[in-house]
């Protein structure tokens, strides 16, 4: 059953929460705010507490989530988010501290940030890390700002190009553009890897950096990563690692060892912090020594065994990129995760993430085209082009039909270079039984696509709503409720 909007449930004069009476002597507001223009009406909805509880409890029943089922959204690493972390992130000593308290009063918080940053640097094989970026794209942007400043600090302000493979996530070119760089796209070769010839051709003295996603969005490890880094370094550029796919190699191999100079993590992917339906995240970055001076201020530093400071005196820094120190409570969860798993546990993550993806690949390769049919890493990209050709059933249709089987669909139409892409990332926390049920559904749908394509094309059939008119959403744009009567 559909749920009315908050505003449609509003009744004049209804109230939920009450505030205390004023315990200090009161003065008339216009005396306190002489000459200030005061608001006459505040058109917020008026509901009872029970109205609100029901509204959001019902809405929650209209939302699929990891807690409800398999969520193999490629590139998103939708793994189990431990409940323990939610408790940790609600400890009063973490929740009720102000970012501007004297540092002596927040030694626990600083120690925790320091520990997470140290662990991330170790996992990255880099020399320093910061948790300040609020998401992956923010980490990319910060890194590019640092790369820009790095080059300028060495007198080369003409390095204005960033090379980005055509399989990269959209945030890569968008971040580069946001940082004033010209983006040059590098094609993918027939094995799904960066085309080294094309890269070589593109490398000139305007190149500031290459942004490489490793493993790539095709779920493949860039086997030639060492050569690639050497080439870019040779041309005077730096190499950035989009680490969104770290789940494949955490504890197995380190970007820093491969030659990357800087990378971002998505703590809301690899480190199991809940994605919250679209954030909060944390796009921590790790850097080699050469970039360390450019890290944003302030930095948490250890000045004695158990004594931490906030260092704001960073003349080389690109500046501040967050109101305070980043998503601290997200870092708390990541810390709990790292401490729970330890070195072996993290390696376990990668091994089983890759095992799961390959198992799905092996079970589905007879039914769907696999554009790059080698062993994959943490995710496998299938194509529905066979289905599309034979019966007009597209990747989108297959995705919608999966909902009827109780699964969240994979990512579709990304990476852009794979036609009718279905990008499946199971993550390590899913059991063989779940993968089998999913593969069975995928196979059944492949069969339906042959025998009853309309069933698939008109899916989903069991969800609270069916397919939406996206064109109407734009044409008759309605992005806020407005009282019909007003």
């Amino acid at each position, binding site marked *: 059953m559909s*749920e009315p*909007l908050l505003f449609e449930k509003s009744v004049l004069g209804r109230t*939920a929460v*009450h505030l205390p009476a004023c315990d200090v*002597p009161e003065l008339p507001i216009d005396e306190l*705010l002489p000459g200030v223009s005061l608001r006459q009406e*505040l058109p917020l*909805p*008026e509901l009872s507490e029970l109205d609100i509880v029901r509204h959001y409890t019902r809405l929650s029943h209209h*939302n699929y*989530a990891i807690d409800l089922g398999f969520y193999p959204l490629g590139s998103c690493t*939708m793994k189990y988010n431990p409940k323990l972390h*939610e408790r*940790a992130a609600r400890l009063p000593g*973490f929740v*009720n501290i*102000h970012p*501007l308290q004297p540092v002596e*009063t927040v*030694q*626990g918080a600083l120690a925790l940030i320091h520990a997470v940053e140290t662990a991330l640097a*170790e996992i990255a094989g880099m020399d320093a890390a910061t948790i300040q970026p609020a*998401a992956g794209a923010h980490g990319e942007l910060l890194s590019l700002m640092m790369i820009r400043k790095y080059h300028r600090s060495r007198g080369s302000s003409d390095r204005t190009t960033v090379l980005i493979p055509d399989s990269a996530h*959209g945030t890569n070119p*968008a971040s*580069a553009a946001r940082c004033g760089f010209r983006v040059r796209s590098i094609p993918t070769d027939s094995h799904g890897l960066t085309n080294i010839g094309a890269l070589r051709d593109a490398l000139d003295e305007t190149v500031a950096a290459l942004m490489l996603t490793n493993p790539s969005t095709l779920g493949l490890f860039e*086997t030639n990563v060492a050569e690639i880094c050497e080439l870019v370094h040779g041309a005077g550029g730096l190499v950035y690692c989009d680490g969104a796919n770290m789940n494949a190699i955490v504890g197995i191999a380190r970007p820093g060892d491969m030659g990357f100079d800087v990378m971002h993590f998505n703590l809301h992917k690899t480190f*199991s912090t809940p*994605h*919250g*339906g*679209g*954030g909060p995240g*944390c*796009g921590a970055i790790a850097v080699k020594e050469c970039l360390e001076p450019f890290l944003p201020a302030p930095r948490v530093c250890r000045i004695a065994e158990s004594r931490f400071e906030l260092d704001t005196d960073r003349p080389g820094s690109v*500046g*501040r990129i*967050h*109101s*305070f120190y980043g*998503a*601290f*409570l997200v870092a708390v969860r990541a810390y709990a995760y790292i401490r729970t798993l*330890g070195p072996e546990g993290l390696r376990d993550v990668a091994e089983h993430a*890759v095992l799961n993806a*390959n198992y799905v690949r092996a079970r589905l390769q007879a039914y769907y085209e696999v554009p790059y049919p080698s*062993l994959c890493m943490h995710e496998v990209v299938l194509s529905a082009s066979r289905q599309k050709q034979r019966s007009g059933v597209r990747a989108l249709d297959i995705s919608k039909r999966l909902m009827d089987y109780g699964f969240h*669909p994979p990512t579709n139409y990304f990476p852009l270079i794979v036609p009718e892409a279905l990008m499946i990332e199971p993550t390590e926390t899913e059991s063989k039984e779940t993968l089998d049920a999913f593969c069975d559904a995928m196979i059944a749908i492949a069969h339906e696509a042959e025998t009853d394509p309309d069933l698939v094309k*008109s899916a989903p059939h069991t969800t609270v*709503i*069916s*397919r*939406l*008119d996206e064109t109407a*959403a734009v044409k*008759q*744009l*309605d*992005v*806020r409720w407005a009282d019909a009567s007003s």
Partner: protein
Amino acid sequence: MSYTPHTERDRTEMLRTIGVETLEDLFASVPPKFRLEAPLNLPEPMDELTLVRHLEEVAGLNKSTSDWSCFLGAGIYDHFVPAIVDALASRGEFATAYTPYQPELSQGMLQAMYEFQTLICMLTGMEMANASMYDAATAMAEAALMLVEVSGRRRVAVSRAVHPHYRQVVRTYLTASDVEYVEIPCDEGVTDNIRLKDATETPAACLVIQQPNFLGCVEDVDAMQRMCESSGARTVVCADPVSLALLTPPGKYGVDVVVGEGQPLGSPLSFGGPLLGFFAFKSEFLRKFPGRIVGRTRDTQGRRGFTMTLRTREQDIRREKATSNICTNEALLALSAAIHLAALGPSGMRSVAELSLQKAHYAARHFSEVPGVRMLFSKPFFKEFALRLDTRRSVHDVCRYLADHHILAGYPLDTAYPEWPNTLLVCVTEKRSKAEIDDYAHCLRAAMEGTK
């Protein structure tokens, strides 16, 4: 411990299906020289019981506002959050979902975001609002960059009365885009109108101000808006959402963009993160604004449904031509803010604003009666005010004295404004009781005496 459910038998069967012998074999494409031989240099794993103890210990090293009186504001505010906010926002269906790419399975979050957008419009008096930004600082930077793009003018004017951190973030962003940054000085705690006029004579993309400003004072948004209109500069107002229950909303004056920090709406202090940037704008920017937006439409059966819309601005479709690089934003905090606003409603929000106002003014009256203490500015203020301490010892010493009495005294302004040594920015919200304020006054008096 790694939350992997695999049994030995699962592994064997799965490897057989894949056609390899060992887990190691799956990593054949990773050059052997990069494969770690030794385990990572990280602490050994902890079971749940041990970890909970450890985390309680670490958290215990912090002095929290559960035990200390908080008179610190400066961007993060200790406002009351009713219990239903976390009770509802923490539900797994919301917390463990991804960005709602598949609307049929995500109507809950999509509807909640549509409602959030509406609530932000209601609060700010603007036409449209997006589904959130990282924080106020980046929302401000993105607003400035959007207006640079819209206007073609590569110069941004920012009031010095804007939060110093926000100004730093704006500068960081502008620098990366080679856009000029100019700062408008303050006079008597508000943006200096005369200097503003001078500054906007050279064409600027926009003026960025804060309301109430960082120093706690109420700006004359109306006047500045009119001034900017005449010079062709656009306006960005960074508003405290709590103040909007009391002050005429910026939308009324024709402001172009209203951004702000949503933390005071349902989120705890959290050592300053995660935060919630909001971004409300005139509808003329609907092809230019950054971030996600949710729209209402119909399904194949004519039922109302919600979906992310105007997506062609975004990075996943437009790549380097996108209006911003933002992807993951702050959906769960936006959800909390919506619940919070619904729970407080107009009367609750107004109470919070009025109580903060009354208590801040009560505190200001009492604190400035302490010998050697006076108000730094005389302009009208909302819930924060700046004190000047006439003392031989530093304001940091005074703060330390109050800390000994479990009071977080405020933010010493000299950190960001060297022009004002020995000043303290004090914040009083509805949560501070008369007893706490009186206790502060008492300790302040003692501290001032002790330092004479």
